[in-house]
């Protein structure tokens, strides 16, 4: 029994990371109405920036701050210089331009750091495990759960409690209406895209000590993020949270029952949700 409890808690830990990975994709879709295939590339950049900074002798904590800011800035520039010019084109081309971008980022990473991955050390403060009676749990994973929970609350506040948040929510209903009200829609687009990129990079930094950094983690993460937003419902903050935790727990529990099949099961879960609730658990229609 306790192994399932442990795996469930593990799953929540993975799930919170998954939430962080998927929420940016979801918000960007909600506002800009297109799926960012380069989202995994931002996650990849986050992990590698963390790897590089820690190799230079900076602490993990600096990486946790700098990498998301840097990747957010890259995302901001990407939106301004690249994506802005495809909004008027058919939606396939929105996707294809980000597919091209993801390919460029992946190849640049291989060019800079080589095709093989490397591990990233867990910060000293968080090495070892917490013992609580018979319950043993790695400190770092506990930190990830707590940290992402705080971030989730913060993000929720930004979306629900600030002017930017209301503009974003209004924009995802109707961008025309928002611009008629005199708000600079393009400015909001850039900011939201930057925010999405930064959250993906943050997920990458947090994942790096757990799974290392390797060039093809981006596409893997993208596949998982798609599953989460399809399960939870695209464009929905709570959908990303519920979907992320659900998928994390499914993957974690399945990994004790059927280790080889754990990765397959999350896709099976997705197909099941989709057949029963086509718009996801918490998604809106249309």
């Amino acid at each position, binding site marked *: 029994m306790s192994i399932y409890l442990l795996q469930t808690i593990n799953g929540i830990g993975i799930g919170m990371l998954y939430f962080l990975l998927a929420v940016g994709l979801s918000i960007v879709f909600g506002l800009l109405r*297109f799926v960012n295939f380069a989202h995994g590339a931002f996650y990849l950049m986050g992990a590698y920036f963390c790897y590089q900074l820690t190799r230079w002798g900076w602490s993990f904590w600096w990486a946790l701050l700098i990498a998301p800011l840097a990747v957010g800035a890259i995302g901001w520039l990407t939106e301004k210089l690249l994506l802005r010019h495809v909004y008027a084109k058919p*939606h396939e081309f929105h*996707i*294809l331009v980000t597919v091209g971008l993801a390919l460029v980022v992946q*190849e640049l990473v291989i060019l800079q750091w080589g095709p093989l991955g490397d591990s990233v050390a867990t910060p000293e403060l968080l090495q070892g495990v917490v013992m609580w009676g018979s319950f043993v749990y790695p400190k770092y994973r506990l930190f990830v759960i707590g940290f992402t929970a705080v971030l989730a609350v913060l993000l929720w506040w930004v979306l629900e409690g600030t002017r930017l948040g209301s503009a974003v929510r209004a924009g995802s209903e109707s961008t025309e209406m928002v611009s008629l009200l005199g708000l600079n829609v393009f400015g909001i687009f850039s900011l939201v895209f930057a925010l999405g990129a930064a959250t993906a990079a943050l997920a990458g930094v947090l994942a790096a000590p757990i799974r290392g950094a390797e060039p093809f983690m981006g596409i893997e993460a993208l596949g998982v993020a798609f599953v989460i*937003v399809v399960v939870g419902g695209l464009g929905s903050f709570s959908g990303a949270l519920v979907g992320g935790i659900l998928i994390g727990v499914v993957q974690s529990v399945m990994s004790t029952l059927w280790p080889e099949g754990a990765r397959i099961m999350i896709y099976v879960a997705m197909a099941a949700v989709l057949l029963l609730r086509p718009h996801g658990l918490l998604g809106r229609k249309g």
Partner: protein
Amino acid sequence: MSRHSHLLLALAIVVAMPLFMHSGSLASEVLIYALAAMGCNLLLGYTGLLSFGQGIFFGLGSYTIALLLTRWPLPMPLALLAAIAMGAAGAAVVGWIAIRQRGTYFVMLTLAFAQMFYFIAYSLPGLTGGDNGLLDIPRPSLAIAGHTLWPLASPWQYYGFVAALFLVAFWLLRRVCDSVFGRTLLAVRDNEERAAAVGYDLRLLKLQAFVISGAVTGLAGALHAMMTGIAPLSNAEYHTSEMIIVMTVIGGTGNLLASVLGAAFYVLLGDWLSTLWPRWLLLLGVVLMVVSLGLQRGLWGLGESLWGLARRKRPAPPAPAAAPSANGGQA
């Protein structure tokens, strides 16, 4: 004009490649990926479906033929048919679920399925060889009742076989695109609501397009496995799906010959650049972005524009009499 001229052009490409190229394997590769890109084009260019699941069908084709040729003493043409059938069956399953969603959800679903297929292939080493893939796939000659009709041992012999299948597939796909079914797909691509309002069963149409696309892609996967002698796990990866899409988009959508052009561009550029610079895919990413930004009809569209420009300029000075006849009825 176009039906026969396109088939003739395809024939001309098939005949021309041995004259200009040194490697039969490379020429075969061009046609094999052209098949896969045409399958993708049927979905993207004719039906408006951007599918990241093409690698599934490609992988299914290559695994099927590898298993049949190495483990069962099945005649090669039957094994090839089985690979086509598996591609079609895989497309039917993926399509059945994915086309319940439209637009962005649909695209994400196809990618999720591609990832799922990859992990399934990875977790079943007994069937797929796992990480190593399936090795030592034979390339038996085309024979009927013991009489060898066409040996496939040398690369150029194999090219002849691939070329024949390519032309048949091209002809069939053109028939499909020119049929009432093909025209209906275009109506779906241009306006789904209108097509549905007129009374077409969108799901059935899309599923049929998917199955045809899967069959062609499965054939491509099988031919690729026979050419290289291996069915690697990488044939089932996201990268394969991406590659097929990139070829299709760079060539230009909505025109089958454009897919041949896209595949040739990708394969030949890759063959030339990969020895010079292993990270040549970076350039390809840039090309994909450029095409998405400003060249949405792909290389084919670029060629047409240039051709149109050249034709408009040329008749003026030397032969003014040619201009009205080119305009036909309008003059």
